[in-house]
């Protein structure tokens, strides 16, 4: 059995290792490693389209993860204070946000937003004093919102789990000692759930940064890194893509390790 497990781990990691190895290949072909070179990294990072896509992805992932961390934490705290029925409704919707396939989230958001814009844009135009009214369209905003949906549900789940294992006695002791609810929250609850919030933020960032299918539908004229990579892959495999894949894989691994480390922390360091 141990041999089988070792084989599975090799199966999981060898393909990734191969991409990393060949990103340093001096030659152009996957079949032979002709020498060590970092030239593809230079080529990738001097490609203006790629850099633009990378910047877009970083901006979208940061914004949607921040929004998700904030709203998700608030929701997790709020859900501690409501009755079972409201809680069940929220849990069902949050569960749906996580389980519904990305392709369905993508197309339904596309359909709803296009309809919404068709109503709102003429209305805005009629109100606007000048000839150039602002037009709502698909782009940063729609990707951030659609990514944020999954991420927020994720943060609510992670923070909620941490909240339910929180020591109630500490909260009671704090209010017995005449701390205001806000002080109790700041000095007792927040430090305890902070690792969960950070972990949620990091995973939300990773999700948004890696997502292809949702962004594919709601990106409008914008390009994210996965959309750019997908389009290039379909034109053919190049070592430049290996370099970008290596950067993205390393970044994701780092973020997930950070998230796990945060979740593993029982008590915050002083």
């Amino acid at each position, binding site marked *: *059995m141990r041999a089988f*497990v070792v084989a*599975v*781990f090799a199966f999981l*990691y060898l*393909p*990734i290792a*191969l*991409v990393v190895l060949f990103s340093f290949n001096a030659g152009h*072909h*996957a079949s032979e490693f002709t020498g060590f070179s970092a030239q593809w990294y230079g080529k990738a990072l001097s490609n203006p389209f790629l850099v633009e896509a990378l910047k877009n992805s970083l901006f979208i992932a940061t914004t949607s993860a921040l929004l998700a961390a904030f*709203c998700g934490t*608030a929701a997790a*705290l*709020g*859900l501690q*204070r*409501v009755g079972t029925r409201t809680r069940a409704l*929220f849990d069902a*919707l*949050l569960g749906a*946000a996580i*389980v*519904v*396939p990305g*392709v*369905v989230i993508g*197309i*339904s958001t*596309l*359909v*709803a937003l296009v*309809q919404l814009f068709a109503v709102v844009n003429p209305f805005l135009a009629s109100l606007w004093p000048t000839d150039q009214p602002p037009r709502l369209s698909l782009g940063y905003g729609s990707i951030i919102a659609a990514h*944020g*949906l999954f991420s*927020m549900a*994720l943060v609510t789940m*992670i923070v909620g789990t941490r909240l339910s294992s929180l020591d109630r006695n500490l909260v009671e002791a704090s209010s017995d000692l005449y701390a205001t609810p806000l002080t109790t929250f700041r000095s007792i609850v927040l430090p305890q759930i902070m690792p969960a919030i950070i972990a949620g933020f990091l995973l939300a960032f990773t*999700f948004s*940064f*890696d997502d*292809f*299918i949702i962004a*594919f*539908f709601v990106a409008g004229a914008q390009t994210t890194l*996965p959309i750019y*990579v997908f389009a290039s*892959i379909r034109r053919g*495999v190049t070592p430049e893509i*290996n370099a970008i*894949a290596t950067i*993205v*894989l390393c970044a*994701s*691994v780092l*973020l*997930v*390790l950070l*998230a*796990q480390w945060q979740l593993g922390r029982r008590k915050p360091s002083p």
Partner: protein
Amino acid sequence: MPAGSQPAFSMRRSLFRKNLVTALLLAPAAVWLVVFLVLPFVAIAIFSVGERAPEGGYQAALTLAQYANLPARATAFWNTMVLAPAGALACLLVAYPVAYYLALRAPQRWRLILLALIVIPFWTSLLMRTYAWMYILGGRGIPALLAYVGIEDLRLINTPGAVLLGIVYGYLPLMILPIYVSLERLDRRLLEASADLGATPLSTFLSVTLRLSLPGVMTGFSLVMILLLGEYLIPTLLGGGKVFFIGNALVDLFLQSRNWPFGSAIAITLVLVSVVVLIVANRISTRLSGARRVDLI
């Protein structure tokens, strides 16, 4: 804050304040869920009973014509309905021994490290991981190596087999985790009791271990299967347009041929099938033992 002069009034006021805070805490999430989950779903439900406008897009109507037209995409449904369960089953067969080893056999100090090594690929880009296999299976990868030893013209990429491999590779972590969780919570004394009562290791495994881990198996199976029903990247990159999934049909209908009402009908059907899969899996696992929740991280 000083207490009010009238106790009843003060109490009502503090109750009101408490409810207000709760509402404010829940409001952003509620708005988000309604605007970007519930409304979009209602929108595609309405679209799915509409008609296609002549220039593409939507025209209001109340008809089941889109649903009656579903057989037009029968190949996509057929491929998905065959390869999604087959992929989930293949994942399960690889995942179970790994989860078993991690939960019951691995040395304690290695367990968390090994578990982290399972979780990391799950959270790294599926696009990049699938791309790795494109690289390996593509003309300059394994086929080129095999050509050295005299096996020529072997086609690996753009076959159903390549798609199945990609599926196992992509979704293995998601299958291992719930099974690990259910095995890890298993009461070890049951295994000892079974052995003490003279059961062979095999019959202990079948009647105790396997049985008690079935909720985890069902959770993993249904999660993987539902995500596979909406899969697009793996069939596109490793199936090369020869192995079409429902996800491919949806991308085509929404982004290329712009038949939104028909696409919406397919999407609604997809969601309904997912719900059925979830309900069946849930039934099976609650019947076998109490429901377990999944930890994705």
